[in-house]
């Protein structure tokens, strides 16, 4: 059984516009993901591709006008989407934890950081206060905060960005979650601090045998810290598989474009086929969503592309991808 399994997840923004017309932005279109314990999954894509929305949908953090209109999210075999608010509250923060992008604005500015950690532990685990205090100090130690005793009474504004991010990671881990979702955990941090935080995450994933999902737009982070990668475009996962395989032999034209745009591979002066707008979420094209930006696109891209297994665990959603020799049974494009 997978730790987390997302099937055909669809999240739309449904609202009435200024003319009272009902409008629907199809932000997530059939997202499929699986994650196992001890694995790190990277989710990459451009702004607006639906990376963060996927995480929020999984955690039940959506608020109107966002609405899940289809699919299922199973965590340790349990369906999350049908749970009540109270039920999801017992899971979120305890078994599923999240580290968000902007560490400073995510801490309560009027509570000392030690108290914030203790409160989180008391809410989900309970027990004597002294136990929670010890646990909080242990966690601060584990995430590499120097002098945990001294920092226990520090206020959030006294912390640097890197330290605040460590506190958030300590908060995420204090209840020993099974699944950690890190949404751009190092954006806004300096590269030398970024390396410290990512090393720490990797170490903690192994130590606590968690599943970890890292949402990022930095392909370098994925290349070196994630076992699996899922590439998103317009609310759809267009390619997923083991990181090395996807990066070295990208199958989907969009993945190829994305990789070619990284500074290391970019060749200035060579005419490239980059750029273009993502499709209008209010008015998605029928068939392949990336057809307008794709150099390979032909008439057959007007039909929805099949999800093709290129090799074990490496899937791409494209008409032009050839399935693996062995597994030809799935689709004969």
């Amino acid at each position, binding site marked *: 059984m997978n730790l987390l399994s997302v099937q055909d997840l669809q999240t739309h923004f449904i609202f009435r516009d200024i003319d009272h017309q009902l409008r629907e932005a199809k932000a997530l279109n059939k997202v499929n993901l699986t994650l196992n314990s001890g694995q790190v999954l990277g989710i990459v894509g*451009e*702004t607006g591709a639906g990376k963060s929305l996927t995480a929020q949908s999984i955690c039940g953090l959506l608020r109107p006008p966002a609405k899940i209109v289809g699919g299922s999210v199973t965590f340790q075999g349990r369906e999350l989407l049908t749970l009540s608010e109270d039920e999801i509250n017992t899971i979120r923060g305890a078994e599923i934890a999240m580290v968000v992008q902007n560490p400073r604005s995510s801490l309560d500015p009027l509570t000392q950081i030690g108290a914030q950690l203790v409160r989180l532990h008391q809410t989900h685990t309970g027990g004597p206060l002294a136990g929670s205090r010890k646990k909080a100090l242990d966690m601060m130690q584990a995430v590499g905060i120097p002098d945990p005793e001294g920092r226990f009474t520090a206020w959030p504004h006294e912390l*640097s960005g*890197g*330290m605040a991010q460590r506190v958030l990671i300590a908060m995420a881990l204090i209840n020993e979650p099974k699944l950690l979702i890190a949404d751009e955990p190092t954006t806004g941090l*300096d*590269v*030398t*601090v*970024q*390396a*410290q935080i990512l*090393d720490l995450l990797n170490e903690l994933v192994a130590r606590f045998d968690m599943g970890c999902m890292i949402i990022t*737009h*930095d*392909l*370098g*982070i*994925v*290349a*070196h810290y994630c076992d699996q990668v899922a590439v998103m475009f317009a609310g759809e996962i267009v390619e997923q598989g083991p*990181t*090395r395989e996807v*990066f*070295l032999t990208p199958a989907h034209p969009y993945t190829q*474009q*994305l*990789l*070619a*745009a*990284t*500074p*290391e*591979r*970019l060749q*200035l*002066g060579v005419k*490239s086929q*980059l*750029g*273009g*707008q993502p499709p209008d979420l209010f008015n998605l094209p029928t068939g392949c969503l990336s057809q307008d930006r794709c150099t390979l696109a032909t008439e057959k891209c007007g039909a929805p592309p099949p999800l093709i297994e290129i090799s074990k665990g490496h899937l791409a959603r494209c008409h032009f991808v050839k399935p693996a020799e062995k597994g030809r049974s799935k689709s004969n494009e």
Partner: protein
Amino acid sequence: MSELVLSTKNLSKRFPVGRSGSFVNAVNGVDLSIKRGEVLGMVGESGSGKSTIGRTILRLTDPSDGEITFDGQDITTLPTKLIRPMRKDMQMVFQDPWSALNPRMKIGDLIAEPLRIHFNMSRSECNDRTEVLAERVRLSADFLNRTPSALSGGQLQRVCIARAIATNPKLIVLDEPTSSLDLSVRAGILELLQELRAETQAAFLFISHDLGTIKLISDRIAVLYLGRVVEEVPKDKLFSDPSHPYTQSLLSAHLPSDPNETLQRLTLQGEIPSPINLPTGCSFHTRCPVAINSCQSNVPEADEISPGHLVSCLRLKDGQNIIRRDLK
């Protein structure tokens, strides 16, 4: 062709902290020079003074100390009245195109604004030139009648670049021009800048924290740490022969997108010290794995170890400036 467009000598900038009498030492004695048609990349972490240097050399803020020579003229203390007409020769592109453009002006007017200010152009001349500029940055002429809200980030950054090149400047300071953009959009902007740089022969000061981007576009790279240039290096030597311990650790923290490239793990401990209380001596000694006692008291001078490659490190003399991998 190799005339100097800009040079600074011992450039420093301090900002007072309230009425406490203490100062944020943002820039501490920086010597830089840029030639015509050259791209100088400036890389460093936040708080290293990159943006302050960019703003100070354009006299958007006044230096506390040092000299700025622009196009053969000392502009360090030139009054604002005389600086203003010179601004047509020195332009800037900012990081965030959304806030750099007046949201209520039309794109056409935004591009024409520098032309109207600096050249006495008739309306029709202005319009013609605006269209040429829009085409040059590959922006569709349909956008000229729209407001910034109708454009994407990449398109807005093209508008900012069009504004910057409108007056044929001799120097363009680009302060993280691609940091807020998506990868594919970023690639397009870098391609455009590369083209313009060949076309205009302007000198570029390209500020970024992304080593990949810096390497792609610059001829020379200055590595900053706490308001000092610790290493100045020709582009091809940055990755092959980084000589300052800070440059080495910065490079080792860089994550290339190729999973086959092995990482050199030289992760630094701690974070960048506060620029209010600068460390004595070499500012990097608090985090430097090869620091010795004399690093705490002596500020290292820049040594030219090969043509165009300057390194400020005390350990250079005894050859111990290279962090060995087994140290970590």
